[in-house]
C-alpha cells in the first residue's frame, strides 16, 4: 500500500533540478545546498560546517553573506515555560484532552491531560467548575525526587522531563505525584485505529519510529512534556492551540512582560495543592 502512494506522490512531485534550471542561479549549488540542509536538519552536520562550506559560493552567486545564526528568532535560552488556565473560560469540552491524545499519539490508558468536573452545592444553588489538568511541571517535583535512576528530572526550561530510555518502570513516581499526572504505558494499542503503531509522537524532539513491543516507551511511565517538540518549532502546546474558549495561555514565566507572567500574578491566580510545596508552573484563574 505504501509503495502505491509513494508512486503517486513521486509522479506528482516536480524535479528539483528542473525547477532550479529555470532560475538564473547555479543549479548545482542549489541542489548541493538543499542536500546539506537536509543533513543539517538531521543533525549529521553542524550549522557551522554548513556555513563554512557555502559562505564563499553564496556570496559570489547571490552577493549575500551567509551567517552563522543558530536559533536566532527562536531563541529559547533562559526561558522557563509556564501555563495559565482560565477556569471561567473553560467550558469542559475536553478538546485539550483529545488534541493532546492526537498530538502525542498516546495509547489507551495513557492520558497527559484530563478535565475534572467539580460540582458544588445543592439545587438550586449549584456551581460547576471544570479543571483541566496537564502535568503541573512543578519546580519542586516529587516525582523527580523519588525516581531511583533520575529518569525524570527538572530541565532548565521548566519542563519536567521523562527519559523513557532510562526509566525502569518501577512506578514510584506515579505513586508520588499528587496530581495523578503520570500514566504507565502497558503496551496497549488502539486496534480500531488503522496504523496506530506506525509512528509515534517525537516527544522531547526524539523520533522513535514505530511503536513496537519491548521498545520504549512501552513498559515505562509517561507524562505531559508541554509538547516540547512543538515548542522547538515555535508552536504552542496542542492543548493551548486547540482550546475552543481560549482558556489556556502559554509562555515564558521568566519574562515579567509575558502574558502568562501577568496573568499568574493576578489576584485570581491560584495553583493546585499548593500545600504540598511542589510549586507548580501551571496557574489557574478562578
Amino acid at each position, binding site marked *: 500500500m505504501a509503495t502505491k502512494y509513494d508512486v503517486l506522490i513521486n509522479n506528482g512531485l516536480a524535479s528539483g533540478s528542473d525547477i532550479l534550471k529555470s532560475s538564473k542561479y547555479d543549479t548545482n549549488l542549489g541542489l548541493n545546498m538543499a542536500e546539506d540542509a537536509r543533513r543539517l536538519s538531521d543533525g549529521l552536520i553542524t550549522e557551522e560546517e554548513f556555513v563554512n562550506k557555502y559562505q564563499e559560493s553564496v556570496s559570489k552567486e547571490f552577493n549575500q553573506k551567509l551567517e552563522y545564526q543558530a536559533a536566532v528568532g527562536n531563541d529559547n535560552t533562559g526561558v522557563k515555560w509556564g501555563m495559565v488556565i482560565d477556569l471561567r473560560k473553560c467550558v469542559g469540552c475536553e478538546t485539550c484532552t483529545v488534541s493532546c491524545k492526537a498530538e502525542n499519539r498516546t495509547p489507551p490508558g495513557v492520558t497527559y491531560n484530563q478535565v475534572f468536573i467539580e460540582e458544588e452545592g445543592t439545587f438550586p444553588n449549584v456551581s460547576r467548575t471544570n479543571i483541566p489538568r496537564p502535568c503541573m511541571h512543578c519546580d519542586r517535583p*516529587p516525582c523527580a525526587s523519588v525516581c531511583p*535512576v533520575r529518569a525524570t528530572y527538572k530541565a532548565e526550561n521548566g519542563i519536567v522531563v521523562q527519559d523513557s530510555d532510562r526509566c*525502569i518502570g518501577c512506578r514510584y513516581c506515579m*505513586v508520588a505525584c499528587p496530581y495523578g499526572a503520570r500514566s504507565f504505558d502497558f503496551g496497549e494499542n488502539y486496534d480500531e485505529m488503522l496504523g496506530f503503531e506506525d509512528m509515534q509522537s517525537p516527544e522531547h524532539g526524539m523520533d522513535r519510529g514505530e511503536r513496537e513491543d519491548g521498545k520504549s516507551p512501552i513498559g515505562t511511565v509517561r507524562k505531559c512534556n508541554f509538547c516540547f517538540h512543538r515548542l522547538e518549532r515555535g508552536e504552542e502546546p496542542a492543548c493551548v492551540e486547540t482550546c475552543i474558549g481560549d482558556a489556556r495561555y502559554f509562555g515564558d514565566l521568566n519574562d515579567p512582560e509575558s502574558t502568562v507572567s501577568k496573568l499568574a500574578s493576578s489576584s485570581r491566580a491560584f495553583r493546585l495543592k499548593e500545600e504540598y510545596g511542589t510549586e507548580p508552573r501551571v496557574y489557574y484563574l478562578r
Partner: protein
Amino acid sequence: MSQSAVSEKCDTNHVSEATLEKRFKLWMAALILAMFAGGGAILYRAIEGLAVTNLSTFVPWGGWVAFYIFFVGLSAGAFLLSTLIFVFGMEQYERVGRFALFTAFICMVVALTFVLLDLGRMDRAFNAMAYWNILSVLSWEVRFYLIYILLLLTELWFAMRIDLIKLSKDRSAGLKSKLANIIRFGSEDTSEKSAKKDHSWMKILGIIGIPIAIIGVHGGTGTLFAAVGAQPYWNTPLFPVIFVVSALVSGTALLIAMYVIQRKVRGKSVDLQMIKSLALLMIFFLIIDLGLEFYEFLVAGLTMKPDKMAVLDVMFTSSMSWSFWGVQLFLGAVIPIYIVFSKRFNQSVKALTVAAILVVIGIIGVRFNIVVPTQVVQSMYGLPEGSYFPNWVEWLSSIGVVAMGLFLYSIGAKLLPLETQEGDVEDYE
C-alpha cells in the same frame, strides 16, 4: 550452657534415613512443580508485559510490591533475631542462629525477585545500580540491600566456618563435603583461638548489621513509603517504625515455624522452652506493633483530614476490609495472642507453631493493607476510584517465587552445616 540445651539430648522418635530421603524428594518435587507453574506465569508476564496483571495506572503498585516488603521485613526480622544471639549473647536461642541468618539471606533473594518482576522494564534493572538519585529513598535502598546481603553471607560464613572445615575433611559426606571444601575458601584453622575470633567477627558484623537492617533495610523500606507526600496514609513519621516492629514480629514468627517444621519433619525433638520463649517474644513485638498502629489510626481519625479518612474508610469498611479485620487483626493478632496466653495451648508445640504461622499470614495482610487501600483513593478529585486484587498471573508467579525461595532454602539446609551441633552451644560473651 543454658538449661534448654541440656534438656534436649537425643532424638525421641527416630525416623529412618529412607523415609527422610523420601520426604525430602516429595517436598522437592512439589516445589519444582510450583516453580514450573510460577515460571510459566512469569514467562507470560515477561512476554506480554505488565498488561496481563491487574495493575493499572490508578493502582500502580500491587501484590508484588506487598510481597516485596513482606519478605524484606521477614529478612530484617530474622537477622535482628540472630543479633540477639551473636551480639547480645542470648544463647537460649542459639539453635536458630544460623537458620536465622540463612533465612534472612533467602528472604532477600525472594524480595529482590519480586521487585524485579514488578519492573516495567526488567531488562533495565541494572540501571538502578548504574544511576543514583541522592534524594530517592529507593535508590538508597537498592544499595543497602546489596550491602546487607553481603553482610549476611559474611556473617553466616563465620558462623559455619569451623563446621565447614570439619565437613570438608569428612569424606563420607559426599557432595556436602565437596561443597564445604569449596566454600571454606581455604580456611584451615579449627583451633579454640580461631573460634573465638569467629565469634568476635560475628559480633562486629552483627553490630554493624543492626543499624543497616533497622535504618537501612527495613526502616528504609518504610521511609520509601513514608516519604511520599502524595499518599497521606503513608506520610507519617511513625510509619518506618511500624515497619521495623512488624519486621520483628514476622521474622520471629517465621523462625519459630521454620525451626519446628524442620525438626518435626526430620523426626527430631523440639526445644519447647525455646519455642515458648520465642513465642512470647513474638507476641511482645506484636502487641507493640498493634499499639503503634492503634495510635496511627486514632490520630488520623481524630484529625479528620478528609484524604486520610478516605483511606481509612477503604481499609475498614470497603469490600476489601476483610483483609484488615479478618487477616490482619483476627488471624494475625487475636488468635495467636489467645494461643500464646491460654494455659490450654501454650504448652503444645503444635499450637504455638500454628500461632506463629498465623502471625506470618497476618503480616502478609498488613503488607497488602499498606500498599493497596491508599492507592484506591485517588490523589485528584475526579479520577475514577481504583480497584485492585491480584489476578492469577500475579498469584501464580508469586507462588513460583516463594517456591524458589523454599527450594533454595531446602538445598541450603541439606548441604550446609546450618544445624548447630550438640555441644556447640556455648557462651558468646
